[in-house]
């Protein structure tokens, strides 16, 4: 199998290209850049969206993302694989219908005050 087949970026050494679940993306498997698991996406208000122009999956994403939602949670709630959701989010981003906030670099190494807030918050749960 050609390793460099265009569009087959989402590969696993053992598993080969991703196929069937990607029919909703028209077979596109390249993950859009960005959309970290914990990036937050927010969609345009529903009443500004011409729903007739969209696939049901796009619409489902817009509905869930009326409030900021992490990409992983979005994927779970619309019940689509992560890679699929990323492709669809790329479409919506291109159409100006969602905005994505990638995680702040500081989240990987938060300052002491933030860590203390997390400890206190966990204790208070």
């Amino acid at each position, binding site marked *: 199998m050609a390793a460099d087949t265009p569009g087959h970026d989402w590969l696993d050494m053992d598993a080969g290209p991703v196929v069937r679940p990607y029919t909703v993306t028209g077979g596109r498997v390249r993950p859009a850049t960005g959309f970290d698991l914990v990036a937050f996406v927010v969609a345009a208000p529903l009443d500004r969206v011409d729903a007739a122009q969209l696939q049901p999956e796009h619409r489902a994403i817009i509905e869930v993302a009326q409030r900021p939602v992490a990409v992983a949670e979005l994927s779970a709630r619309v019940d689509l694989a992560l890679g699929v959701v990323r492709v669809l989010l790329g479409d919506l981003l291109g159409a100006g219908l969602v905005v994505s906030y990638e995680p702040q670099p500081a989240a990987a190494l938060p300052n002491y005050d933030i*860590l203390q807030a997390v400890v206190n918050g966990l204790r208070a749960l």
Partner: protein
Amino acid sequence: MDSVRSERPGAGQRIPMALKILIAGGFGVGKTTLVGAVSEIRPLQTEEVLSSAGEDTDDVSGVEAKTTTTVAMDFGRITINEDLQVYLFGTPGQDRFWFLWDELAFGALGAVVLADTRRLADCFPSVDYFETRRTPFVVGVNCFDGKQLHSPASVRNALDLDPDVPVVLCDARDRQSGKDLLIALVEHVAKRRVVAA
């Protein structure tokens, strides 16, 4: 990025900071259980789907025949406050999904490695992975048999852990125990920061 328009989606909405914590360990060690015990939402699964490496990979008509493998990543959330959320991700158990681990570990605050003393070796790959990446982690010894067969010290020895890595006895089914594990991790991260500063 393009210029900010006033009707930009999400304008005026508060975006919290999201901290990512991984829950790792061998097959059946209690990863899903732990995520469920501490998450404020019903644990969700986000998945990636891979076609299996079937014999018919080169058969253009074989698309329908291919079976797909679903790699599920358990996922939970804890809201600390309006501006701060912790996301928990259970890692997929099988080694061939390392590429998903890389995505999960990217930007992670740290990890909890669950260990079952009856088969301690199952957590070696997780320990190796986080050591190599210098991702801070704690080891949670999941006491399946209800009694403590091994002391934390003997687990530490067997895993050849750095002396500063916390080893905590736990019960993944118990919310308080799960919280204690997460607190141990965050305090460990904080301590490493102070030492590094």
